[in-house]
């Protein structure tokens, strides 16, 4: 989901850790090193990497193309392949029957069945094009805040992993406690009180 869409979802993160100076170069290196690379010959069902906000299918992080108004703006691309289990079952059946006929035996061992299934699945994943999913990222370095334009759980997990690998800094998801603890400027006394809270009962 893109930040320019008419309707968006946003999850916020606090960026913990110091980005190595010069920051712009470090960010650029991280983006380039972990940029999305097309790989249709891969039988894995998922491919992840950074891509340009304004050019999702041809990432280019030259100069400061990912900087807008002192913000780092880029996108996470996750390509996924999927094959219906029914199709896998069909080709598994065909391949199993073929092997039984060739070997003249009446059964396959558990290991042989597993190998057939893997082979069939790999072959099918090679033939299926991946579906691209693009999620925009806005990183306010000065405020150590990052907005991720999706609340899809697996996409958020991919973001956290790739961000850590790319920039050697961690993303802490903003949720009720972390916002209160990190962002609201509470006094030490208030933070102590916060840590001792338990649920209130309004009625019932």
């Amino acid at each position, binding site marked *: 989901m893109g930040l320019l869409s008419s309707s968006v979802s946003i999850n916020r993160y606090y960026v913990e850790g110091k980005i190595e100076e010069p920051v712009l170069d470090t960010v650029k290196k991280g983006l380039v090193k972990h940029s999305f690379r097309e790989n249709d010959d891969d039988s894995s069902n998922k491919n992840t990497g950074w891509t340009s906000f304004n050019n999702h299918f041809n990432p280019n992080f030259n100069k400061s193309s990912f900087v807008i108004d002192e*913000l780092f703006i880029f996108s996470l691309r996750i390509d996924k392949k999927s094959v219906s289990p029914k199709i896998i079952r069909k080709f598994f059946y065909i391949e199993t029957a073929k092997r039984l006929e060739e070997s003249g035996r009446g059964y396959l061992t558990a290991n042989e069945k597993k190998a057939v299934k893997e082979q069939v699945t790999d072959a099918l994943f090679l033939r299926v094009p991946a579906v691209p999913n693009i999620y925009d990222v806005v990183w306010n370095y000065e405020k150590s805040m990052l907005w991720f334009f999706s609340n899809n759980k697996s996409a958020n997990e991919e973001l956290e992993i790739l961000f850590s690998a790319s920039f050697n800094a961690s993303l802490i*998801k903003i949720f009720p*406690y972390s916002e209160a603890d990190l962002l609201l400027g509470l006094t030490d006394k208030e933070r102590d009180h916060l840590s001792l*809270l338990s649920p209130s009962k*309004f009625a*019932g």
Partner: protein
Amino acid sequence: MMLDVSLTYYRYGFLGSEFLTWLWFYIVNTDRDKLFDNKNETLEIGNKIVLERKVIDAVEKVTIKGKDAGLEEGIISLKKGAVVKELNLLYRKEDKEWSFTVTGENLGVSNLRTPDIGFIESKKDVEGFVVEKIFLYASLYFLIDGLYKKFIKLRVSDGWITVVSDMNKWIIF
């Protein structure tokens, strides 16, 4: 900074639901012109409320949709001990309007529609549109963070007991 995310996420998960329940109470029990210092700002309950109640080992979920999502059915759920898990809101500032849903679990924002900023006609327009959109998102977070801070300050104060009592009266009567 030491924050055990996995522990605190669940241990204090109730804060988000309490915030949204309080926010509903706060909006409907505060005069419109007293919600903000700026008289040209308003905040209203939108078209969806999701409530949840734990019943022994099960969770009872009630979703109320529609204009003026409302509020009687929601109050009945509150009476039974439910809390608000998601709240759709309408925020207006001068001639601009934001509609959005806040989820208590993570304070995430979804279905966010910002004021209209027109159409991108050429590539040269993109950067300006991005800046404008980000400003509009930031304005909304300014609102949410301000309200959440107001709630948390109350929540950790001695005055919270009075707030709970007032909320109880609102729910019961």
